[in-house]
Structure formats: C-alpha cells, structure tokens
C-alpha cells in the first residue's frame, strides 16, 4: 500500500483545527429549540399540547351530547307480563249508553286492539266504533289534567284536592237551586248508587239524561202502551218478517251490534233448505239497513204517519188510514202487511222515528201481530238510551230561568248537540257552578268552570247493565295515561263519602253483591254476568193511547218543497268519537265518502237542481254545493247524488262540524246540523219539512273512496239472485261458472287446463277465506279492525280525495236495477291471494311473492315502488305509500312541510304523535314511504297460531286462527282457515254448506284467488240485480255467440 496521501482541501492537507471541527460536525443542524422563536406567543410545543388537549376535550364533549335511548328490562318481571306476548283482559266498551263486552289485547302494557267478548250477550260481535275506541285512548286532544277556568281559557288546576275543596264550597253555596247532573245515558249500577249517595247529600239534586240522538219517542210510547218507560229487547233472529220504518237497526239504531248478529241468523242460507227472513224497509233516506232489505220503499218523511196508519189498518187495526198516492209504496205496504200477518207473531215492526205517536202505532201493530214475547222481549229491558226529551227541555227552561245552581256534565255535550245551542249556552252561563267530566275539551266543557277529565274506558273500573240481568264489567287495561279521575270518585269526594274513590267503592259493591272476592274475580275475568236462561216476556198492550196517536198522525201537516232527514252515519254516529281518525276515514257504506257530511239527494232531485249524475260528476271529487234553508237557518253542504234516495228528500248526517279543540282529526270535518233538529212539543224530530234547497255555483271536495257504483253486466264480480230462482235451481251460480269455464276444464280442472304453464301441488297448509255476501251488511267493523291490527295508515281527507287511501280491506258498494229503487250489494274486497297472482310476476325485484301456504306476500324492504303490481292487480287492492304517513321515512321531518302546504291534513301529525303511536301493533311493520302494501291475511296471527300449535305438539285447528276482519265481523260473514284441512270450516263452506253459492271474483282470468264469495240471495219475487238489464242472461248469450263464432 502506498503512503501517498490524497487530499481534497488545504485544510485537510494541513490538518487544521477548523477542518477537524468541521469534519466532526459534518451533519450538524441547528434545531429551532429556542423558546423565543420569532416572537410567537405560543411556542410550537405548547401549541401542540393545546391542540392535543382541545381535540381530546372536544371529542369527549361531543360524544357526551349523543342522546342515549335506554331500553331497560324489568328489574322484577311482573308475573303475568311476558315481553312480546299479549294479554287479554275482559272489559266493556261503554260509550254514552252503548255497551259492548270486549277483550282488550294488551301488549307490553299497552292496549292495542279490541276484540268482542264471546261470552257476552253480543257473542263476540263488535262495531266500527268499538274497534276504533282503542285509538281514542291515545287521543292527543284528551284533557290531561284537571282544568279550571282562567279568563277565556283554562289553566291547570294544581291538584284534585284543591279543586274538590273549591267545588265542595261552591256546591254548598248553591242553596235551594237545582244541582243537575246532565249526562248521556248511564247504565252503571254502581255509579247509580254513587249518584244516589250524592243525591242524599244534596237534596236539590236532579239527574237529567240527555242523549245526543234521542229515543224518547220509543221510551214514552212504551210508557203509554205498556206502562214501562223504556226500550225492550228486540229479537230479530226470531222474526221471519221484519218491517223497518226508517230504523237503521244494522247501522245506528239502538244496538246494532246485537241486531246485526240476530239479523244475520235469519239471512244465513241453508242451501239444502233455503229459507230467509223477509225484510221490508220503508224509509226516506238511504240507510245501510235499507240497503240490506229485500224490499225497499221510499216515502217523504212527512208521509210516515200515513204509511204507519195504512200498515196498521192492513194488519187489522181498526183505523181509517189516509190514502197513499204512490202506487208502488201502497203495494209495498199491502205486501208487507200480508207477510206480517202470515208470520203469525214471528214478525217485527220497528220504526226510527222519535215521534211518540208513531211509536205508539208501531207498538199497536206489533201487539196486533202478536210479536210481544216473541220478537219483542219485555223481560229484558235495555238500558242503552234513557233520555226523555221533555226532561231536557224542562232543564233548559229552568236553567234559562236561573233556577239551576250547579250543572255537572258527564258524557253529554249539549252545546254541540242541542237543537238550540245558543239558548242552552246562554242558560248555561247563568249557572253558578259548571263542571265537566268529559274526556276532551268539547263544546260544552269549554263553557264549564272546571274540567275534571274522566278516564277512558280502557283505564277504568266499572260496570254496565246493558239490559235487565246482563251486566258487563270494566277493568283497567293500562294505568291512566293522564291525571284523570273517575267521575264517580268526584261524586264520592263531594258527597263526603267514607269511601275514598270509586275503585274501592266498585269492588266493595260487587264483592258484596256477588258474595265474595272469588265471585268478583270470576266476574271480572269473564267480563259479564248474564242470566242462566234468557228471560223472555211479553207485556200487556194498553190501547188507550192509540186513538190519540192516530188522530195526531192523521193531522201531520204535509210540507211543501223538500224535506230533510237528519241521520247518523254508521262511522261517526252522533259525533262523540269525531276525533277518531279511523272512524273519520271509514267510508260510509252507502255513499263511500268520509271526512265530511254532505247532502244526500236522489238522482231526480239533483236533476231538478240542474245537476246530472254523469261521468263528470262521478270522476270529480269536487261536488256541487247546495244551500239548504230551514226557517232562518242555512247551511251549505256538498251534494252527493245517491240512487234510491226519496225524491225531494235530502239527508244530512249529524256528528260533524266539531270545535277545533276536539282535535286535529275532527277539526274542519263537515258542518254541525244539530241545529236543524225540530221539536214538536214532546219529542225531538229528526225529520224536517219545508226545506228550501238551492244550487250554488260553488264546489266542495268530498273524499270519496269509490266513484262508480254499478257493476253493470260484470256478473263475474257480483253474483246475486232471488230466493225463488235459487230454490228452483240451486245450481244457478254453478252453471253460470260452468258456462264460463267449460272449454277450459270446467270447475274441477280449470286450474290445470286454463293455462299453458305447469301446475304445482299445494301440500300442507293452504289458507283460504270465504265471504258470505248474504250476511255481510256493509257495516265496516272489519275495515276499522284491519286498520287497527295492521297499522294501516290514516291519510286524511285531502289524500282520500286524491284516491290515496290505504285501506287493505274495503267494502265495495254496488247498486243494481233501476236508479229510483236500486238493490245494493256490499262486497268486502281485499287481496285475493291469487295462486296465479298477476302482481307477482311483474315485480322486477321479486318484492311480492307466493308463500308455500298460498299467501301472496309483500316484502316491504325489497319493494322499490314501481307500482307495476298495483296496476296489474285486477282487484285493485294494492296500496302505495304515496307520502310518509307513518314517520317511517328515510328522509326525516318531511311530513310537516307538506302538512303546512295543505297537501296532508293535520291528522297525519295527530297519528304520528308519540302518544298515538302507542296504538301501533308491534307485530306488524310500519310501512315507509314508497312501498306497496296490502292485506296479508293477518300473517302475524297465522304465525302465532302455528307456533302455538307447535308448542302444544298438536295439529293446528280452526279455532287457533282468526283474521282481524273475521273476528270483528258481527255477522260471521267471513270464514277463514286451512283449505287443505278436511275438518276446517272453510273447507266445509266451500264443499258443503255453501257449495252452490260459492264463486270467485273474476274467476275467468285464471288468477286463481284464495278468497271465495258466496252469492247474495234476496228474499223477493222481483228480478234482482241486473238480470232485468240482461246482465246474467245476456252474458251467456254473448258467450254462446262468441263460441259459435270460433
């Protein structure tokens, strides 16, 4: 190695200090660690510290703000509550005088559905209002705590004790003036006992019963002719001939829930020996009951007396009857009279009039027929309505005169329902102490000094004696939602009773009466106490009042111009439940309209006013407005043209036009026409003469769910005939079907031969439904039950008018025959669960498909909303979620803007309130916007039934399952079950009991529905349906021709 040195710089060569130092620190770099770099206030390290801390702090703080939704299990699980399993409590639906024993389905502490109590006298039947009542429990407009007047409004009373003290003082200060309990009919024996105690304390106490729609005429007539002021039980099932004069006994009259069931017994056809009751209806308006009648005749309201007297004369009454000009009507009376007499006591005449004279004649006719003790039972007087009109009139007079010192209002709402609201209100203001126990701040409560809201029936203890010997019990199904208090508790407090509250009183009362706690518990569990054997008794008819009644009826002034009938809608009734969205959205059976009242007019009347029932009228929801004037009162209402209304008669429903405070659903719906109710010196009159009706240039949107009412020649949709034809040829319907299908395999092989596709076996369970058009009376209880069970959305008036209603089950109403006297068929229409469903194969994403049990299923979270299935459904039962009805949308908060823009009604907000949503059935998905939904045959119930059977290790049987509609139906028109089970009721109906009447709607298009219908048969000699138009017959001719052509 050479020692030769290589150098790069002189420094290196000379090995200087500077060089050595530089070489040592070759990579040294000045780091900016000085604390005062460039004068910055926050040095870098501090800055990083601050940054780190503040980020961490912000993160912590932000995460603390996240709302935490807690779901806490029971610490100690109550013995009888299993989460997800429903409990059923026997209780009683009580509304004014109505009593229906029910079972409340309570799920996780919330009542969510009402079913009929089958051990009760209603035999499990319900009505639309019973079904809807559970929603009223969660009504947002309920008064939530005691209120006392403060200025024009109310303020919350601090405690009940404070209010009690004030009221007790006020009651003491009343002095000699009357203390009046103004209530709707009360039929609780224990509450009556409390009232009696109260009366003992305050001698000037007086009880006035005021029913919104009065039955005083019947009550008084029975007093006059039988010496018993009250209403007897009617037995429609015993009646072979029924004549109703304007009584809507299947819809609204006294106790439709019982009558519907009884009536259906007489309408059900035993095909081997077809017999039916014969039902004549004479009326002015068009009631649901009239729509079910075999023979229906119309007359002017003012002709009722003449009709009655003629009928009385014809059945053998010694009376000179005025002549009847209308030939058809006269013949009808003749015919009805003949049949009545021939029925030998198994006949019943009822009348909807509230005129005592009319009811006296009705009693005379029934007595003449020997109906007492057969179809009329004085052994069990009913307690549904007790109001006597003259007592109310006396009370109003007393009040106006200043003779009343205190009024306690419970159940009644006269400021709204009384014929002269102003007079009542003026008198009411003169009363020193006014207390309301009503559940909402209704029109009368608004004028009271105190509102001490009573519980909803589902929160209450109580009892109701529906009729003599029939008691039904109430027990709470939920802790009171609000600071409410039982009405009787207030009375107990004020009468200074030793018993602290009504609950204690009630328990003691019944334990005492029934002789022990065990008996009491048993009664609560059963829900009802009934006599072992029904007591059936007649009564002796006292004819002394007849002559006077005849005299008065003969004098009835004939009115000029139009006449007005004031009626109750099947859904809304007297208006008490007007804030119930399910009821508001339930279409009327006859008009198929909801959310409003309107003037029903006949086709002829409409023509005389310049309107035609043509296409344009039909397809436009905007209906012409009529101006209706009686005396100095005027109301403007939209016109509905209804075939079969009596000419020159218009009919308007009560129950609408509630005050805004009654709730968002009732707000703005219709107009109040209670003010048109007349008074003849003894009774309130619901028919009014001398009515002026004028057309106006205005229109008003009516929410109608069905625009077209005739089925024309479409006999594959509706099949009906008369009993004579059916008796002569029981195969009439079968032959009709055969004729249609004979080239495609006939009835038996149509499934296989009607298609080019392979046919699959259907082993195991196959669900099927049969609906008997003979017993379906169109009441709509099933529609509301379906909404309740399946969380079907309420869409509100504006959306119904746009044809956006969501009902899974609807009752189609078809008129047939001539426009003046049409026949009506009600046809419940729901998803037919077709085995060859046209909806299934068109869905691009297979969101709707077929189950192995024959169900047409909807998969909501797969649906993208093309609506192709709805288009392709021949039954048009599929419903699309046009808007976010349920607050279940992917886009939050998008209800309010469209409510504000008027597209949705405020009822949507009511239905989506946290309180109202408690009614939702947790077993059923709440559908979001943009998906299709439809009837599922209550699949959640089917699953439950299958599971129950499985757990019990036994085959599933019929009694395990009931769909909601089937269960609600008061007439058992719906049969449901497993068709593959040879023992099932549905199988029996289709193959034995109803084999001759069974048909499938639109069978010929080979969609193979799983819902069958049983053709309607009418007990009449007439040609029914569209046969006279050649519907049934000609369609065959056409077919033959077509076949020949091929």
């Amino acid at each position, binding site marked *: 190695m050479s020692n030769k040195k290589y150098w790069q710089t002189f420094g290196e060569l000379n090995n200087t200090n500077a060089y050595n130092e530089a070489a040592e620190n070759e990579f040294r770099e000045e780091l900016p660690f000085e604390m005062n770099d460039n004068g910055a206030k926050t040095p870098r390290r501090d800055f990083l510290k601050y940054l780190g801390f503040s980020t961490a702090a912000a993160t912590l703080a932000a995460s603390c703000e996240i709302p935490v939704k807690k779901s806490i299990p029971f610490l100690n699980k109550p013995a009888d509550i299993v989460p997800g399993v429903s409990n059923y409590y026997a209780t009683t639906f009580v509304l004014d005088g109505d009593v229906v024993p029910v079972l409340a389905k309570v799920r996780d502490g919330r009542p969510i559905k009402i079913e009929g109590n089958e051990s009760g006298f209603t035999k499990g039947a319900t009505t639309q209002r019973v079904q809807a009542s559970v929603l009223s429990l969660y009504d947002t407009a309920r008064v939530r705590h005691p209120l006392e007047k403060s200025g024009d409004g109310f303020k919350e009373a601090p405690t009940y004790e404070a209010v009690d003290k004030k009221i007790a003082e006020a009651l003491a200060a009343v002095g000699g003036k009357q203390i009046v309990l103004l209530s709707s009919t009360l039929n609780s024996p224990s509450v009556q006992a409390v009232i009696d105690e109260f009366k003992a304390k305050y001698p000037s106490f007086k009880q006035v019963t005021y029913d919104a729609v009065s039955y005083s005429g019947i009550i008084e007539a029975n007093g006059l002719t039988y010496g018993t002021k009250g209403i007897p039980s009617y037995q429609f099932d015993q009646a072979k001939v029924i004549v109703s004069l304007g009584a809507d006994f299947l819809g609204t009259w006294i106790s439709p829930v019982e009558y519907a069931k009884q009536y259906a017994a007489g309408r059900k056809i035993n095909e081997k020996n077809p017999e039916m009751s014969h039902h004549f209806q004479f009326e002015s308006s068009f009631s649901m009951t009239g729509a079910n009648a075999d023979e229906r005749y119309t007359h002017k309201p003012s002709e009722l007396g003449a009709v009655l007297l003629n009928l009385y004369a014809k059945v053998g009454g010694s009376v000179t009857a005025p002549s009847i000009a209308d030939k058809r009507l006269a013949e009808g009376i003749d015919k009805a009279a003949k049949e009545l007499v021939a029925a030998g006591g198994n006949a019943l005449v009822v009348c909807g009039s509230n005129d005592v004279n009319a009811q006296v004649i009705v009693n005379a006719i029934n007595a003449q027929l020997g109906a007492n003790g057969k179809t009329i039972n004085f052994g069990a007087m009913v307690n549904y309505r007790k109001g006597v009109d003259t007592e109310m009139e006396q009370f109003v007079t007393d009040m106006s005169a200043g003779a009343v010192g205190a009024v306690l209002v419970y159940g009644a709402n006269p400021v709204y329902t009384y014929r002269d609201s102003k007079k009542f209100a003026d008198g009411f203001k003169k009363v020193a102490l006014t207390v309301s126990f009503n559940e909402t701040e209704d029109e009368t409560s608004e004028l009271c000094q105190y509102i001490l809201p009573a519980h909803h029936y589902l929160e209450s203890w109580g009892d109701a004696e529906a009729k003599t010997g029939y008691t039904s019990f109430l027990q709470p199904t939920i802790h009171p939602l609000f600071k409410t208090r039982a009405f009787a508790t207030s009375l107990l407090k004020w009468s200074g009773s030793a018993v602290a509250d009504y609950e204690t009183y009630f328990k003691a009362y019944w334990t005492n009466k029934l002789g022990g706690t065990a008996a009491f518990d048993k009664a609560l569990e059963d829900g009802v106490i009934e006599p072992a054997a029904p007591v059936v008794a007649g009564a002796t008819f006292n004819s002394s009042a007849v002559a006077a009644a005849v005299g008065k009826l003969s004098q009835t002034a004939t009115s000029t111009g139009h006449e007005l009938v004031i009626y109750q809608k099947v859904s809304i009734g007297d208006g008490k439940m007007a804030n119930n969205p399910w009821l508001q959205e339930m279409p009327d059976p006859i008009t198929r309209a909801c959310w409003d009242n309107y003037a029903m007019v006949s086709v002829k009347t409409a023509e005389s006013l310049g309107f035609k029932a043509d296409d344009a009228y039909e397809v436009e929801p905007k209906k012409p407005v009529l101006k209706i004037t009686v005396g100095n009162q005027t109301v403007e209402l939209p016109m509905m043209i209804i075939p079969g209304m009596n000419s020159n008669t218009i009919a308007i429903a009560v129950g609408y036009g509630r005050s805004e405070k009654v709730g968002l659903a009732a707000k703005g719906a219709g107009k109040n026409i209670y003010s048109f109710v007349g008074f003849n010196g003894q009774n309130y009159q619901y028919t009014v003469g001398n009515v002026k009706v004028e057309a106006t240039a205005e229109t008003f949107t009516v929410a109608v769910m069905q625009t077209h009412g005739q089925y024309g020649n479409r006999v594959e949709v509706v099949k009906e005939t008369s009993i004579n034809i059916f008796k002569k040829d029981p195969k009439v319907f079968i032959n009709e079907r055969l004729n249609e299908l004979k080239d495609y395999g006939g009835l038996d092989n149509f499934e296989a031969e009607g298609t080019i596709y392979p046919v699959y076996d259907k082993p195991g369970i196959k669900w099927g439904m049969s609906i008997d058009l003979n017993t379906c009376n169109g009441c709509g209880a099933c529609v509301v039950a379906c909404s309740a069970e399946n969380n079907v959305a309420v869409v509100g008036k504006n959306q119904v008018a746009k044809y956006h209603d969501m009902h899974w089950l609807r009752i189609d109403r078809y008129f047939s025959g001539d426009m003046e006297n049409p026949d009506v068929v009600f*046809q419940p229409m729901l998803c037919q669960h077709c085995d060859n469903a046209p909806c299934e194969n*068109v869905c691009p994403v297979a969101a709707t498909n077929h189950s192995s049990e024959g169900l047409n299923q909807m998969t909501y979270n797969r649906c993208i909303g093309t609506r*192709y299935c709805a288009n392709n459904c021949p039954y048009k039962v599929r419903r699309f979620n046009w808007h976010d009805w349920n607050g279940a949308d992917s886009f939050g908060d*998008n209800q309010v803007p469209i409510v504000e823009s008027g597209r949705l009604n405020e009822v949507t907000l009511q239905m989506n309130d946290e309180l109202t949503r408690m009614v939702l059935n947790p077993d059923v998905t709440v559908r979001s*916007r943009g998906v299709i939904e439809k009837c599922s045959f209550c699949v959640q119930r089917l699953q439950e039934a299958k599971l129950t059977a499985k757990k019990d290790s036994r085959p599933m049987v019929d009694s395990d399952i009931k769909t909601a509609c089937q269960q609600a139906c008061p007439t058992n028109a719906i049969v449901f079950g497993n068709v593959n089970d040879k023992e099932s009721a549905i199988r029996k109906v289709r193959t034995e009991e109803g084999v001759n009447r069974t048909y499938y709607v639109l069978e010929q298009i080979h969609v193979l529905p799983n819902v069958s219908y049983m053709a309607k048969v009418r007990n009449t000699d007439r040609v029914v349906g569209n046969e006279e138009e050649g519907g049934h017959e000609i369609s065959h001719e*056409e*077919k033959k021709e077509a076949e020949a052509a091929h």
Partner: protein
Amino acid sequence: MSLLKYESQVREPLVDGNKTYHQVTEDICGPVEAAPSRLWWIGFIISVALLLFGVVSIYKEVVYGTGMWNLNKTIGWGWDITNFVWWVGIGHAGTLISAILLLFRQGWRTGVNRAAEAMTIFAVMCAGQFPVWHMGRVWMAFFVFPYPNTRGPLWVNFNSPLLWDVFAISTYFTVSLLFWYSGLIPDLATLRDRAKKKWAKAFYGVTSFGWTGSTKHWQRHESLSLVLAGLSTPLVLSVHTIVSFDFATSVIPGWHTTIFPPYFVAGAIFSGFAMVQTLMLVTRKVMNLEDYITISHIENMNKVIVLTGSIVGCAYLTELFMAWYGASKYEYDIFFKYRIAGPYGWSYWLMMTCNVITPQLFWVKKLRRNIAFTFLMSVVVNIGMWFERFVIIVSSLYRDYLPSSWSVYYRPSIWEVGFYLGSFGLFFTCYFLFSKYFPVIAIAEIKHILKKSGESFKEAMDPLEEQSVDEFVHQAHAHH
C-alpha cells in the same frame, strides 16, 4: 368500379350547391369553430332553465313522495310512464336511420344520421329518467341489477317485463352511444386538425382517439360500423317490443293484447321521424345546412312518417275490431265505452286526429315538400304519439275490472308536468351542446356520397346521360 358509383339522374342530388370536399368541411366545421350565436345562447339558457325546473320537480317527488304527483290507487302510472314510452319511441328513428338504412345502403341517411343518432342518445337519456324517478324508493333502484350481492338469496325477477326493460334500455343506450361515437371519430379528427385554440386541440385530440385517417383506420371504422349496424338493427325492433311487453303481458284490458309489439315499433319510428324532422328543420335553417339536409331528405322522411302513421292507424282499428270480435266484455267496455268515449274520450280522438288522420295529407307530394307544413306535422305527430301512450296507459287503468275501483279524474300535478318539461330541458341542453361542439352532419360520410349523389357530380353526369347506350359503351371501351 362498382355499381354503387352510379346513381340514376332521376334521383335528386343529396348534396346541393356544387360542393367540393373542402367546402363540405368548411360548411360543417364552421359553426363548431365559430362563437355561439345569440340564438344559440337563448335556446341554451331556456333549456337549462327547463332542466333546472325538472331537477326541482324530481327533488320534490323524491323528498316528499310520489304523492306529489296525482297518480292514485287505480292509476299507478300516468305521465311518468307515458313520457318514458314516448321518449324511448323517439329514439328509434335515430337507430333506424343509422343502422337499417346503412345496411340498406340508403345514401340519404348521411345528411341526417349524425343528428338523429344524437337525438336517440338524448331521448334514451330522457326516457331513462322516468322509470328511475317514478320509483317510490329511488335510492333502492340498484335492486334491479342482477349482480352478486350481500342481500342473501335475493335476486331480480326475470319474469318481470320491467326487468326486461332495464336490459333493453341499457343495451340500447350502450349500442347507440358506441355507434354514434365511432361515427364521430373521423370528424372529430377533422376538427382536431383544424383546431387553432389550445383547448379545442386538446379536446378534439383526446376525443378523436388518435385517428390518422390511415387506410387501416378507415377499414376498421367501416367494419365497426357494419358490426354495430348489425347489432342495432334488431334493437330497433326489440327495444320497443320489450317496452310494449310492460303492457301486453299484463292482465289489464286494453293492455293485454298481442298486437302491441309491431304496433309499438311502428309508432316509435313514426314519432322518431317526426322528432328528427322537428330538429332537422330547425338545425338546417339555423346552421345554414340546407345544402346537406335537402328537401328530398325531408320528403323521404315524410314518406316514412306517412307509412308508419298508416301502420299505426291500422293497429288502432285492429284493436277496436278485436275488442268487438274478442267478446271479452271488459276489453269491449274499455275500448268502446271508456276510451273512445267517457271522461278521456277527448284524448283518444286527439290521438286519432294527430296520428292517423292528419298524416294522411303527406300523400300529397306538395305537402311532403313543404317545410312549414312538415314542421307543423312533425309537432302534431309527436303530440299525437304522446297521447297514444297516455290513452293506452291511463284509459286502460282508470276503469279496469272492478267498477268499485274506477278512478277519479286524473290530471297531472305541477311536479309531474315539471318532470316532463325537465326532460325537454335535458334533451335540448344536450342537443344544444352537441350542435355547438360536434359536427351535426357526418362530414366523412357526406364526402363519401358527394361523388355520386352530389349536385356537381350529377351535373357532370348529364352529358353522359344524354349519350345513347352504344355511344356510352363505345366510350367506356375506349377508356380501357
């Protein structure tokens, strides 16, 4: 040389005005290179405004629900699907012109094919909006695509005509786009070569895909055109056939009919040509292209219109006949009670007038060659064809099987109309951009026919035509 070179003198020239190749390039590239005109701006701004209105309309519908439209439980489809079918139909003329006429060697197609193809693409884009946005849950629209997914065994339903639509429309759009674009490449290269501005050079440089005009390029281009024409030809027939299946395979009277596929295809071509006319008549005027889109082009298209219009008319009458002869009372009722009469009777007669009666005037040669009349008719036909779809969809649905479900009167809400107007906005926005930045006439293809169907060429042939056959043969031999 091939016989193609010779064209009878009886035929009118397809390019007027003694054009040279350079002039052709100048005429067609000129408007692209020039600044947009005032008229262009006005049209463009109106289009964009309409488009924005459409966007707002869709926004309302998507956020607040399909209930913002006036469809209902009985009429599930209305303006939405009417517009869909209408726009798809319009697209068909473009494909027919570009594909079928190419295969049939119809020289006159070159004047209009570019714009017609563009129209096809834009029309299909518009059409596609409707089935998408009419969905209740459009954010789940991807459910219609059959691809392996994490949603368990869920798969699309191949039985559904709506799914067939998805495939039909997407295929149609893809093929049309490829066809249009491959045709554009030589012309884009022309623009690139002429471009002076930097961005134009870059833009046309990229879009022309490195076209050099080499023989190999031309050869491949021609092959591709033929292949795509072959692919497109069945699409002309299949797309609207499948669209018609949406209706024909259903059970609804008025929809359930076997005549729909040919009837729809004829109708589609009918309305498509009408739309081409509408666009071409404006374009040739505004862009001074009268020499390329000549009266004879217009007359040719009018002939197609009168033919297809008559086919459609026959279809209408056949439907009525079958409704009577078929002895299905539901179908009979729909046609004779609720379609030609009833609340929507007016729409049926409007359709009949616009589609069947007035186009018959085109049997008159004078009217076929009248520009103003043609323009008027083209609009009338498209109104008629819109109503045809409206009649089929709405008047079948509103009164189907159960009389209880018969609908209230359906009229569109502002947002339904807005959506339709918005589709016009989309269409014209695209068309304006296209006409500004792309050659609206296929330069290369015009040049291709210039030497046989151009006016100058035809004039040059005049002396030859006057020769006797012997003279011509002699001369021809002499050349050899």
